């Protein structure tokens, strides 16, 4: 070991506290950078994995590639893997049962052919899952979607060219298909991507035809699970069923290709390459996957992430550099005399610089590997702790219970390089300074004191003016005596030590405020989560039933709901809160039911009392009668029973006798009804060439339909016209109001019953029984609300149980699992909080290390000065006062700088998040700034106490022996 290495080693050992703090700084900053990048790579990789698992790994998809494209793709170096599937034709089919098939055509496609890449190319799209039998091996074999299993085919009477099969469709049976090419009205070729075009069938006003139809027989080898068109699963199609035959079957009409590329780093490069191969605008890009793969950077989210990650990394680098720079600057300053002595003994500048770099090397060798490991371990622990949130975000169960940590070698190299760079840059200036130390200056400590121009001028002026003793020179000296004088002199005349302290304080402040800015920039996400899935919903899980357009005689929706609710009673984990369906109707009220006193508060409903023709309008009339548009809620018997003792039967109604109205910002609760009575509900008026404005009452109390005529552009603006009910096809039905209800059943809070006037509650059977709702029935959904029996239950499991029950019963029902979504959003919010907290916590540790290191060391550097002061009779009080004054001065300057500087990252983060969440005003994290101020003050206090203790332990006699180098 050379003398200089040994010199460095001793210096590191002797200043153990500073060495440890420096190593901690290197470890923390490396760990933080590693953590930021590893989190990004892990999440990206998880997102890519998730998208690939759900949607396949294709980057480019062309449903109808041009001829010859297959060959080009197979030999192109940019193709990592590619598969192709040909469409052979489509056949009409009909069902023996007296219902129309879900889709009107069966399209035959080939199983995938691998054009490039190995077997894994089949992961480009989601391959069909075979539920029964096997995949087709020859061109005469076929596999059908499971929805066709056991189905008996039959052509409509007299129709030709329909698929047929002897008996029900089963493995081993033969199906005959009349395959033709789908041609649109303008002669264009239609693929499985196009919806079925038939004016009678779907939303299209055009009709497609099958051309060149030929009969083809296939032996059925198996059935597969129907695939999703929306996710571009392999056999998903817009509006046809897809049957699959062998990969090599001839007779292709169109060929679809799925491609994964390599060596194309950007979306532009990708498009430039693929355009000539597939034709511009003929293909689809897998935007989501390309975004997560970092190829498509155009999305706002991606841009936001980039800006945020960049800002985070920059702040960490600045913090790390400032900490390490401080450490070296102090180390060099402390040894100026040593360097001078070495220089006087013949050490060259290069050798002196090298001692500093050796020190950096030692810190790096110890700190960087530890930091890399700590960063990876930290990310693994954090991802594990926040697994719930990611499961929710990704919507799948994560293998191993959490997002796997992905460590990419280039990232490790980048971090190690970055840390080394930070070390070298941080050590550079102190090393240069060490190299420039002049032997004489160092030994005489000539450079310890450096005067700025103002101070020098002032001293020269005093000298010329012959002022021997200057009076108290400033407020500090007047207030604090000699401590104040010494502080003033130290601050104005000492070398760069003060600036280092101020700089590190400013950086610490900046870091703490920065973590607050992260919180603010993420607030829109967490706030949205809170608003959408807050605790307001009375139920945890809703089962939602969609009415059929024409329920016919036996009203199957209500039957389904009742069957489901009966069966669900056996599930102990879920408690039924009731059910409701809601719609609007027109209603008239005779006078006497609505309390005239409440007329004023029901402002929107009342026409101007002075209006001469008030009966042209809906509202509460002066005689107390009313024509209104109530919210009508249909409830099950149990829910009805929660509100009223009256029996629920068709023809009975409840009125919600509570109305909350906002009056210039104040909320007033009114009880709008005076009495029960008989009300009438009406269906919507309809008349050719007119737009309905509902039902009104004339002066005699006769209900009339209020209509406005239409011209080509919509309402003509000629005013309201009144027609009799008969002229407008209106059906009316009377309901007996059996009760006025002040408090609704909890489940009805969903429909905001108190904010709507009037709200009418009817028994569920009325929805099916009343002719008033005949036309509306198809639009009304019924929701059955369930609460979890205990908050400890897993909402997803309970939701699955309910869903399983519905599937067992064969009932079509959708579920809205509010509790699961709320739990998921809570998990996401807590994940974000965890990340922000961890970042803030580590940056705070760096900041503390920074301030503590700088301050305590710069104080310790002055031991000799303190010893002299003590030997001259300075007491402990003066000494502490002097240190405190100096620190307070540094704190103030550091905080001012920190305040100014911290606006920049806050603003950058705001720009970053503002891109994705528009319309958010910039806000500065004042609470964090206050916290940072208090934190900085606390660290300062601790550093002063530490320095005082060190200086008390100081041996004055030793310190005065100035020759100790």
């Amino acid at each position, binding site marked *: 070991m050379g003398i200089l290495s040994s010199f460095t080693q001793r210096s590191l050992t002797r200043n153990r506290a500073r060495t440890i703090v420096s190593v901690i700084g290197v470890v923390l900053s490396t760990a933080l950078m590693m953590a930021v990048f590893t989190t990004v790579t892990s999440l990206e990789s998880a997102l890519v994995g998730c998208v690939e698992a759900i949607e396949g790994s294709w980057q480019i998809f062309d449903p109808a590639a041009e001829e010859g494209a297959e060959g080009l793709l197979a030999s192109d170096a940019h193709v990592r893997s590619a598969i192709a599937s040909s469409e052979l034709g489509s056949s009409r089919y009909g069902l023996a049962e007296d219902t129309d098939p879900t889709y009107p055509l069966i399209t035959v496609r080939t199983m995938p052919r691998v054009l490039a890449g190995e077997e894994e190319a089949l992961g480009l799209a989601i391959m069909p899952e075979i539920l029964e039998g096997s995949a087709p091996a020859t061109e005469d074999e076929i596999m059908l979607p499971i929805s066709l299993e056991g189905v008996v085919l039959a052509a409509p009477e007299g129709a030709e060219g329909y698929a047929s099969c002897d008996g029900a469709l089963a493995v081993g049976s033969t199906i005959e298909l009349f395959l033709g090419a789908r041609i649109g009205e303008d002669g264009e070729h239609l693929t499985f991507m196009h919806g079925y075009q038939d004016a009678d069938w779907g939303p299209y006003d055009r009709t497609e035809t099958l051309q060149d139809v030929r009969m083809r027989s296939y032996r059925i080898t198996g059935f597969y699970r129907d695939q999703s068109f929306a996710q571009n699963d392999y056999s998903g199609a817009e509006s046809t069923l897809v049957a699959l035959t062998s990969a090599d079957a001839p007779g292709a009409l169109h060929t679809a290709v799925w491609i994964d590329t390599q060596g194309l780093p950007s979306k532009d490069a990708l498009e430039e390459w693929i355009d000539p191969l597939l034709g511009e605008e003929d293909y689809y890009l897998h935007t989501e996957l390309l975004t997560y793969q970092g190829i498509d950077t155009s999305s706002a989210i991606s841009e936001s992430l980039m800006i945020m990650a960049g800002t985070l990394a920059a702040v960490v680098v600045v913090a790390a550099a400032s900490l390490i720079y401080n450490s070296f600057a102090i180390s060099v300053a402390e040894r100026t005399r040593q360097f001078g002595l070495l220089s006087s003994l013949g050490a060259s500048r290069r050798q002196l610089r090298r001692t500093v770099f050796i020190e950096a090397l030692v810190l790096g060798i110890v700190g960087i590997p530890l930091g890399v490991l700590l960063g990876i371990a930290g990310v693994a622990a954090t991802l594990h702790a926040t697994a719930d949130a990611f499961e929710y975000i990704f919507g799948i169960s994560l293998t191993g219970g959490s997002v796997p940590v992905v460590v990419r070698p280039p990232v490790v190299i980048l971090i190690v390089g970055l840390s080394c760079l930070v070390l070298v840059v941080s050590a550079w200036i102190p090393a240069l300074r060490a190299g420039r130390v002049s032997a004489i200056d160092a030994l*005489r*400590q*000539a450079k*310890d*004191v450096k*005067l700025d121009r103002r101070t020098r001028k002032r*001293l*020269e002026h*005093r*000298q010329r003016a012959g*002022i*021997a*003793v*200057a009076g108290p020179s400033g407020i500090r000296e007047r207030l604090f*005596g*000699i401590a104040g*004088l*010494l502080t003033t*002199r*130290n601050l104005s*005349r*000492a070398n760069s030590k003060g600036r280092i302290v101020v700089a590190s304080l400013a950086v610490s402040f900046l870091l703490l405020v920065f973590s607050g800015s992260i919180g603010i920039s993420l607030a829109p996400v967490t706030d949205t989560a809170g608003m959408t899935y807050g605790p307001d919903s009375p139920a945890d899980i809703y089962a939602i039933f969609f009415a059929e357009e024409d329920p016919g005689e036996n009203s199957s929706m209500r039957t389904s709901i009742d069957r489901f609710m009966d069966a669900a009673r056996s599930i102990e984990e879920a408690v039924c809160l009731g059910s409701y369906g809601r719609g609007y109707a027109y209603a008239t009220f005779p006078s006497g039911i609505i309390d005239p006193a409440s007329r004023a508060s029901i402002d929107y409903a009342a026409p101007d009392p002075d209006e001469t023709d008030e009966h042209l309008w809906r509202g509460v009339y002066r005689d107390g009668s009313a024509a209104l548009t109530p919210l009508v809620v249909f409830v099950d018997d149990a829910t009805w029973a929660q509100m009223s003792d009256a029996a629920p039967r068709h023809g009975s109604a409840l009125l919600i006798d509570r109305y909350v109205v906002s009056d210039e910002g104040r909320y007033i609760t009114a009880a709008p009804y005076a009495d029960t009575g008989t009300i009438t509900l009406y269906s919507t008026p309809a008349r050719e060439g007119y737009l309905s404005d509902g039902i009104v009452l004339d002066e005699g109390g006769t209900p009339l339909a209020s209509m406005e005529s239409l011209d080509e552009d919509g309402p003509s603006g000629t005013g309201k016209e009144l027609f009799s009910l008969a002229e407008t096809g209106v059906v009316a039905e009377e309901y007996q109001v059996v009760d006025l209800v002040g408090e609704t059943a909890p489940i009805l809070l969903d429909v905001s019953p108190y904010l709507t006037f009037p709200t009418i509650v009817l028994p569920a059977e009325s929805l099916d029984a009343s002719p008033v709702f005949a036309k509306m029935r198809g639009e009304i959904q019924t929701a059955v609300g369930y609460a979890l029996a205990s908050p400890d239950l897993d909402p997803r499991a309970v939701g699955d149980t309910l869903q399983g029950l519905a599937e067992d019963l064969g009932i079509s029902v959708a579920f809205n699992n509010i509790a699961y979504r709320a739990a998921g959003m809570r998990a996401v919010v807590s994940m974000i909080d965890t990340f922000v907290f961890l970042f803030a916590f580590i940056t705070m540790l760096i900041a503390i290390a920074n301030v503590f290191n700088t301050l305590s060391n710069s104080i310790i550097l002055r031991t*000799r*000065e303190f*010893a*002299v*002061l*003590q*030997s*001259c*009779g*300075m*007491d*402990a*009080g*003066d000494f502490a006062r002097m240190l405190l004054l100096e620190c307070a001065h540094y704190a103030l300057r550091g905080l001012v700088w920190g305040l100014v500087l911290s606006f920049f990252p806050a603003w950058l983060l705001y720009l970053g998040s503002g891109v994705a969440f528009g319309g958010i005003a910039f806000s500065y994290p004042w609470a964090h700034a206050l916290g940072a101020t208090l934190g900085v003050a606390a660290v300062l206090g601790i550093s002063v106490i530490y320095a005082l203790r060190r200086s008390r332990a100081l041996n*004055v*006699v030793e310190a*005065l022996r*100035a*020759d100790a180098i």
Partner: protein
Amino acid sequence: MDILSIEHLTKIYGAGEAATHALDDVSFTVQAGDFIAIVGASGSGKSTLMHLIGGVDRPTSGTVRMNGEDIFKRTDEQLAIFRRREVGLVYQFYNLIPVLDVVENMTLPVRLDGRTVGEERLGSLLHALDLEGREHHLPNQLSGGQQQRVAIGRALMNAPSIVLADEPTGNLDSKNSAEIMGLLCASNRDLRQTLIVITHDEDIALMAHRVIALEDGRIVADERRG
């Protein structure tokens, strides 16, 4: 009259086998206005003795009585007051505060005491120390001899009853040495200040009224000269 009485003064650094007896049962008295030179080889305990007399360090055992009062019975606070009012210390390496100018360094003990600086006293000291025209120079703008004169000024500023000087000329050339010693002798002679000088220099020892020789922490000779 004895201004200073040192009785059985012992100072041990370290403990056990590593224990070093820097001073070993040293006793002597000093009369007011005396000029004593303490001589001895390196490590004989000279500087330790001076730091103990100056109240900068505390002994392992024994007493230092100033005007009959044991200074080590004082609290740290009282000892600090003792240092600033009753003794003046001069070191070989000057030990000036680098950020304070000449006047500020010199007046430090007065200001530490919270008193105002007597312009007249300061003026005469600056004159005597030949520091006129240098009042507002910082230590690094001064030569070694000038820095030592500032240190002497600081020691004399409060007119202490005892001035303690540890090798005050050890770092200076012969011309500067003669000047510094001249200043110290003058203060002893004219102001009747007791002066204790630690030195290697025989010429300086010859100027003293009394020479105490130390060896391994013990007094081996104590001679009063004509």
